[in-house]
């Protein structure tokens, strides 16, 4: 599948029985998401009993022109015109024409209409997209009856997966109102289309058993699907909960929780699954007011009012935006309920109380004014006018007072910002910052940017939290206000960007890593940030991994310059060492550079008191010079390496072996034999020998001995082979092979 430009989610709301408040849940969650400025599409898939469009009536009482059934009828016609692949195929080329048809039809506005939903917080209207069940003309029942879903699926088995992808690239959220019961359409909506499945049920046996079984079988069938790798995250939603009967309420919540826990333990392999917190929060209370007509609670009342239907839907919508039910549960932990919501509730209650008192007072004043007017006919017209004016002014003041006391967006934004800066939990902070994103339209708003900067800081510094590319990208983008990284960007954001590059490098996404480092380096240079050296080294690594050796070397030269300017010997050494590694495959071409760099490196390691590194670099110098044909230089280097050895035998014998080989290359047999023997002697005292390399050296040694000595040596080796225990005695026996 190709990468979607928008990573939307298809979420199906399903209930086994009707009348459980499923469509109401869809309408409320969709409205909340639209109020948060997400691009939302609502699809009515309850074709036999359509009704979702009633929640979003078209303007001026117009009828619906087309919808879901028309979309699929049209899709079937267009797909039939193409020669289909005989079975599901992931081959891009085979699917390309089908994908093109589906994407084009999804973008066709003829099946989707816009609806506007109001926010009770700011009073503004927000757009939402609706695909009603159909146009509801005379032919609607026929269209629905004639559509054979099974035949359609068998003819085009890829269609629902492609459709889910196409929808996800057009919308942030696609909410499907599924048909109830056990039907073909139910299977499509619950298993084939979504990545999240909301199972709405009421506290009674028939409703609950139905959704629990559907949960279990839907997850299992998703696992069996041969080519669908998206998750099917199930979110149970207990609906129409009557708060008056608290004992029964608790009992049924407990039953639902236990049943779903059993399913999750089995199908999701979640041992000891406990969804107590989730089930206590994910429930919609019964409010008789909303049983009449199609009223969307979150349009009418503020979700800040505790115990309200709007608050319940808001809490559930937040759960639904999490990846899975456990993440939702983490969000709902007591500290996550948030002081802000409580504070807002208190303020609303106080404002309502004051408004009530003021209204009473005004009413009293109005009564007094009228009494005065009646009693005093002699009072002039002016007096009555003044009384009326007093009432008007009083009402206006009351209105202003009530409005000013409502939990306005600015106050919520401020409270959220404070809470973000106060929390030490990165996921909580991210969640709040996402909410802030929805509340603050201006992405350059300093509160928003500092909130995301704090999120970035928590991602980077919280112990036990491994930063991820997704989270860091989100934090960096937010902190930069969707702008570019610049010299005045906060240091934490620069650091987060650099870490992002490191993560890309680690994950093998080299080009993306290079792109990020390219943005970070100028900012670090401008800010005289010493970590620019590390960034340049990392960039060189990324270039090297993408096989751009020239680019890597050029970057290392820049890094070297920066490190030298800062007189950072450790970094200079690290860079030179990397450069030598890059020159190594072409040692002849880079001989002068190798000579200079290894010489300097040996000096640096001496200064840094790192004799092991000094020895290793001298040995490497010897290797590279030998490879480039500079035998004398190599020999000298090996000698220096031996002299630099820290006395460890394990570091000495490989160098001696190299000296021996070099002597052999120069046809100095006696010198070679002496060196080989010295190497073998050193091996005997090595506590951690490399047996394979030792065998190699022994073989080389035997080859250059005279015949008699070689025979003795072979005898020793034979004895060794017969004695698998590798003791030092067998190796000592090799001494019999000393030259005569």
């Amino acid at each position: 599948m190709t990468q979607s430009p928008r990573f939307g989610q298809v979420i199906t709301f399903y209930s086994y029985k009707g009348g459980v408040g499923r469509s109401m849940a869809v309408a409320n969650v969709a409205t909340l998401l639209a109020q948060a400025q997400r691009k939302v599409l609502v699809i009515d898939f309850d074709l036999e009993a359509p009704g979702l469009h009633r929640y979003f009536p078209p303007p001026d009482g117009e009828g619906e022109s087309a919808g879901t059934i028309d979309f699929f009828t049209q899709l079937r016609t267009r797909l039939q015109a193409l020669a289909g692949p005989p079975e599901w195929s992931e081959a891009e080329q085979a699917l390309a024409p089908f994908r093109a048809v589906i994407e084009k039809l999804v973008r066709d506005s003829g099946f989707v209409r816009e609806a506007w939903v109001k926010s009770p917080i700011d009073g503004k209207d927000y757009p939402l997209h609706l695909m009603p069940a159909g146009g509801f003309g005379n032919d609607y029942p026929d269209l629905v009856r004639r559509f054979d879903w099974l035949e359609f699926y068998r003819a085009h088995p890829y269609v629902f997966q492609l459709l889910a992808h196409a929808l996800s690239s057009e919308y942030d959220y696609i909410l499907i109102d599924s048909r109830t019961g056990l039907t073909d359409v139910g299977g499509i909506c619950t298993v084939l289309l979504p990545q999240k499945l909301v199972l709405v049920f009421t506290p009674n046996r028939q409703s609950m058993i139905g959704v629990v079984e559907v949960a279990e079988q839907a997850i299992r069938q998703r696992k069996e699907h041969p080519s669908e790798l998206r998750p099917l995250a199930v979110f149970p939603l207990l609906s129409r909960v009557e708060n008056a009967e608290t004992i029964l309420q608790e009992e049924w919540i407990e039953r639902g929780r236990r049943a779903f826990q059993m399913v999750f333990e089995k199908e999701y392999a979640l041992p000891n699954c406990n969804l107590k917190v989730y089930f206590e929060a994910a429930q919609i209370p019964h409010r008789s007011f909303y049983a009449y007509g199609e009223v969307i609670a979150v349009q009418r009342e503020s979700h800040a009012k505790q115990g309200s239907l709007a608050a319940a839907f808001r809490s559930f919508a937040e759960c639904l935006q999490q990846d899975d039910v456990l993440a939702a549960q983490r969000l709902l932990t007591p500290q996550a309920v948030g002081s802000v919501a409580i504070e807002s509730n208190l303020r609303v209650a106080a404002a309502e109380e004051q408004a009530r008192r003021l209204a009473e007072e005004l009413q009293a004043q109005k009564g007094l004014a009228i009494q005065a007017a009646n009693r005093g006919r002699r009072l002039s017209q002016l007096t009555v006018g003044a009384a009326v004016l007093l009432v008007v002014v009083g009402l206006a003041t009351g209105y202003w007072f009530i409005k000013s006391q409502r939990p306005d967006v600015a106050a919520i934004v401020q409270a959220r910002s404070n809470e973000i800066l106060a929390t030490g939990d990165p996921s909580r902070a991210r969640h709040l910052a996402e909410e802030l994103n929805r509340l603050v339209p201006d992405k350059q708003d300093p509160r928003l940017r500092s909130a995301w900067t704090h999120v970035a800081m928590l991602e980077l510094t919280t112990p036990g939290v491994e930063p991820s590319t997704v989270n860091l990208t989100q934090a960096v983008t937010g902190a930069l206000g969707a702008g570019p990284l610049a010299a005045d960007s906060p240091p934490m954001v620069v650091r987060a960007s650099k870490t992002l590059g490191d993560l890309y490098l680690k994950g093998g996404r080299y080009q993306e890593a290079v792109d990020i480092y390219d943005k970070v380096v100028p900012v670090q240079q401008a800010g005289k940030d010493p970590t620019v050296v590390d960034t340049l080294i990392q960039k060189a690594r990324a270039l090297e991994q993408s096989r751009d050796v020239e680019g890597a070397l050029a970057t290392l030269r820049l890094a070297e310059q920066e490190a030298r300017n800062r007189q950072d010997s450790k970094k200079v050494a690290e860079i030179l060492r990397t450069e030598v590694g890059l020159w190594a495959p072409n040692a002849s071409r880079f001989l002068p550079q190798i000579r200079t760099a290894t010489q300097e490196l040996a000096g640096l390691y001496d200064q840094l008191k790192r004799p092991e590194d000094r020895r290793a670099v001298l040995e490497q110098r010897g290797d590279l010079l030998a490879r480039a044909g500079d035998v004398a230089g190599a020999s000298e280097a090996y000698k220096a390496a031996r002299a630099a050895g820290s006395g460890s035998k394990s570091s000495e014998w490989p160098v001696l072996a190299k000296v021996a080989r070099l002597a052999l290359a120069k046809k100095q047999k006696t010198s070679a034999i002496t060196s080989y023997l010295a190497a073998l002697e050193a091996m005997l005292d090595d506590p951690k020998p490399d047996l394979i390399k030792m065998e190699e050296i022994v073989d080389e040694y035997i080859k250059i001995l005279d015949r008699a000595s070689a025979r003795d040596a072979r005898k020793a080796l034979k004895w060794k082979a017969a004695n698998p225990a590798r003791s030092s005695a067998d190796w000592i026996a090799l001494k019999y092979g000393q030259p005569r």
Partner: protein
Amino acid sequence: MMAALPENSLERCLRLGFKNHVFVSWPHLIEDRGADIVRELAGALQNKFNNEGGGVVYVDDRLKSGEKWDPALRLNLCRSGVMLAFLVRSYFKSDYCAIEWAIADQLQQQRLPKGTTRGAIIPILLSEKPPLPAQVKTTQCRKDFLPLITFSQLLKSHPQWLVLVSQLAEEIMEILDLVCAQPPDWTAQEELARKAVAMAWDFSVARPSPVLNLPNFVVEERSSAIR
């Protein structure tokens, strides 16, 4: 002096000339999430090995399909101890994957001791019931990541994630122990890798495709928790 060697299988592999401990084989015509799963699991294994003293997980990361199959990849696979194969339907439609499987299969026959029941190819099933060819049917596949994949977009959010990664890492290290029992004949094995041709998958034994049906449910009152 010459007592039991303290090195572990990861170190031993490198000493014997292996470049990578694990080679990750996966089809590139996999959906986006499939690629994410592959990278997430490979990254987690890499971290696990880093804690064990260092191991190399090589992810065959051809950028796009149609790119020339790099001969260096064959050598990389040859110098790898274990191959992790992510099996989805498109795996068996990819020429690259067929070559990788063929190389890994021939190498494991040379490297593993006779009579062992272990294989140096660990197939990971990303679907419970994919149509499998005969060559794979005889191999033991891992299905245990499936519940995690279905549970959440984020694999690592699952409580079992670290446990499963540890189990997989341990299994790999056990297989590496077997692979490293004998020093490989690199000349012969590299030649084998260079010349290997794509595996001809045998689907004749695969169960016939069932008639395609829409997902359906059966509701019975089984759940004692509800009663």
